[in-house]
């Protein structure tokens, strides 16, 4: 573009375009400052903080148990996984062991939530690319089945507050076993349908292949985690490589991409749904008898120490760094959110792309602003 203009002797200058804070495809209130040369993105500067609620300051003024509902509001599509990460961090701080049934129930719930979260991500990504409404409705139809189960378990459809320190809030209902087994059968058929509908669709391929390539060394340097890292070809999953809870007892694969483009990121999420179904299937078959309801005091003091716990969330590695001074409340609670680092890498992968591909790359990173701004 610039060379053509220089040859023709025309004067050109860079154009600054504000994408957001209100934009249908920024998945929240994100403001991207784009510098354009014609249609080409020269530079991109993300501005965040529109959803900053200071959850870390709030945590310093609440007891350990009172902060669980706040973790729902971080990544509101993966609330159960956030709950889980936080209670595991507190349990690590207290050196608390839980029984096997608790771990099984937590695994089932967390993996179901991962499926629900990936379904939203796939649906909205397809919609961002102009596949209007159909993939979105299909994905939300499947997600609805998971959400209905969660609604029955804990009375919430988006914010669950289900995990407790030392256990969970309630037992699974009596028919959960059959319901989940039926869902696994149903969802496996539907995954096939998504592959036919989207994954190998010619228009979809031409919009996403070779767009926004993220190299593995760049991804590690920027501390990118989760499906985005795996799409770049790095076989790394905390559940597999540094197992917490009982993940080392389940058999599942870690899907990876080859190129690291937008299509790989989409495909890795789609494959991860299948792997999560495998984990849920094994967990529901092997769940031991016992009591999963938490029996820990509502108010307790933690010993003066610190703990860092990271878990594999739908979007990447969620870390909680808890520092205790021996009181009823944590002295410091730092939340390391996966989307924060996954967004930081965006400017380096969009340089040189068309403006129209910005939406594609942003959709494929699958960020949630609630956990970036905290």
């Amino acid at each position: 573009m610039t060379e053509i203009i220089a040859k023709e002797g025309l004067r050109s200058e860079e154009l600054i375009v504000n994408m957001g804070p209100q934009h249908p495809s920024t998945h929240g209130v994100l403001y991207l400052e784009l510098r354009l040369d014609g249609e080409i993105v020269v530079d991109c500067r993300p501005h965040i903080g529109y959803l900053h609620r200071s959850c870390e300051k709030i945590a310093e003024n609440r007891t350990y148990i009172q902060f669980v509902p706040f973790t729902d509001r971080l990544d509101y599509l993966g609330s159960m996984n956030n709950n889980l990460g936080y209670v595991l961090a507190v349990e690590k701080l207290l050196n608390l062991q839980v029984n096997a049934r608790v771990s099984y129930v937590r695994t089932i719930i967390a993996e179901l939530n991962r499926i629900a979260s990936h379904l939203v991500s796939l649906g909205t990504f397809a919609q961002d690319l102009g596949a209007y409404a159909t993939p979105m409705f299909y994905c939300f139809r499947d997600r609805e089945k998971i959400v209905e189960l969660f609604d029955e378990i804990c009375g919430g459809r988006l914010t669950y507050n289900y995990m407790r320190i030392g256990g969970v809030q309630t037992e699974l209902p009596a028919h959960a076993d059959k319901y989940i087994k039926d869902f696994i059968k149903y969802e496996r058929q539907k995954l096939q349908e998504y592959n036919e509908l989207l994954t190998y669709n010619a228009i979809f391929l031409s919009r996403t292949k070779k767009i926004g390539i993220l190299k593995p060394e760049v991804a590690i340097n920027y501390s990118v985690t989760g499906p985005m890292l795996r799409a770049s070809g790095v076989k790394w999953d905390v559940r597999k490589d540094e197992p917490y809870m009982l993940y080392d007892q389940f058999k599942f694969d870690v899907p990876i991409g080859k190129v690291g483009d937008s299509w790989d990121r989409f495909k890795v999420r789609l494959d991860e749904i299948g792997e999560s179904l495998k984990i849920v299937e094994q967990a529901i078959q092997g769940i031991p008898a016992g009591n999963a309801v938490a029996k820990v005091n509502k108010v307790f003091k933690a010993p003066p120490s610190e703990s860092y716990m990271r878990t594999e969330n739908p979007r990447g590695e969620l870390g909680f760094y808890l520092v205790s001074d021996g009181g009823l409340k944590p002295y410091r609670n730092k939340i390391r959110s996966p989307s924060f680092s996954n967004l930081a890498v965006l400017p380096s992968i969009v340089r040189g792309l068309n403006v129209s591909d910005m939406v594609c790359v942003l959709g494929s990173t699958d960020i949630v602003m609630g956990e970036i701004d905290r």
Partner: protein
Amino acid sequence: MDLNQLVQAVREKFPDAVAEERKAALVVKKESLRAVAQFLKTSELAFQNLHCVSGVDWKDKIEVVYHLYSFKHRFMLTLKVFLPMEDLAVETLSGLWESANWLERETFDLFGVKFLNHPDLRRILNPDEWTDYPLRKNFDRPDFFRLPQSEGLKAGG
């Protein structure tokens, strides 16, 4: 690999870099932070990933905590540096790990720690005009402010 071996390796390379002994962390003096970090990344320890940067306000000093991860050795290192309140400045690590850029901006925004030679040290979560550092312990939380009675809401108003 365990922490003792690692601390030993750092001691051999930098005899006076370790500030104090800790059970679960490597605490270094702030002058030698950059050199130690460079060593940790480029030596065979291979800490390729700067996972997380946090600040902790201990009232008389601020602690900056770096969580480094080595894929090769499957080891998470907690690297700490203590900064006195009078001199809240430390060398940036953003040339070594790109992830440090945003993570250090966040620590600057919430604690007021200055990262020297940082490429783009601006506030990230709070507005640029903001003057306070909200995660310090002496920050007055706005939920304790009350509007004056005369300016409060009136019934039917």
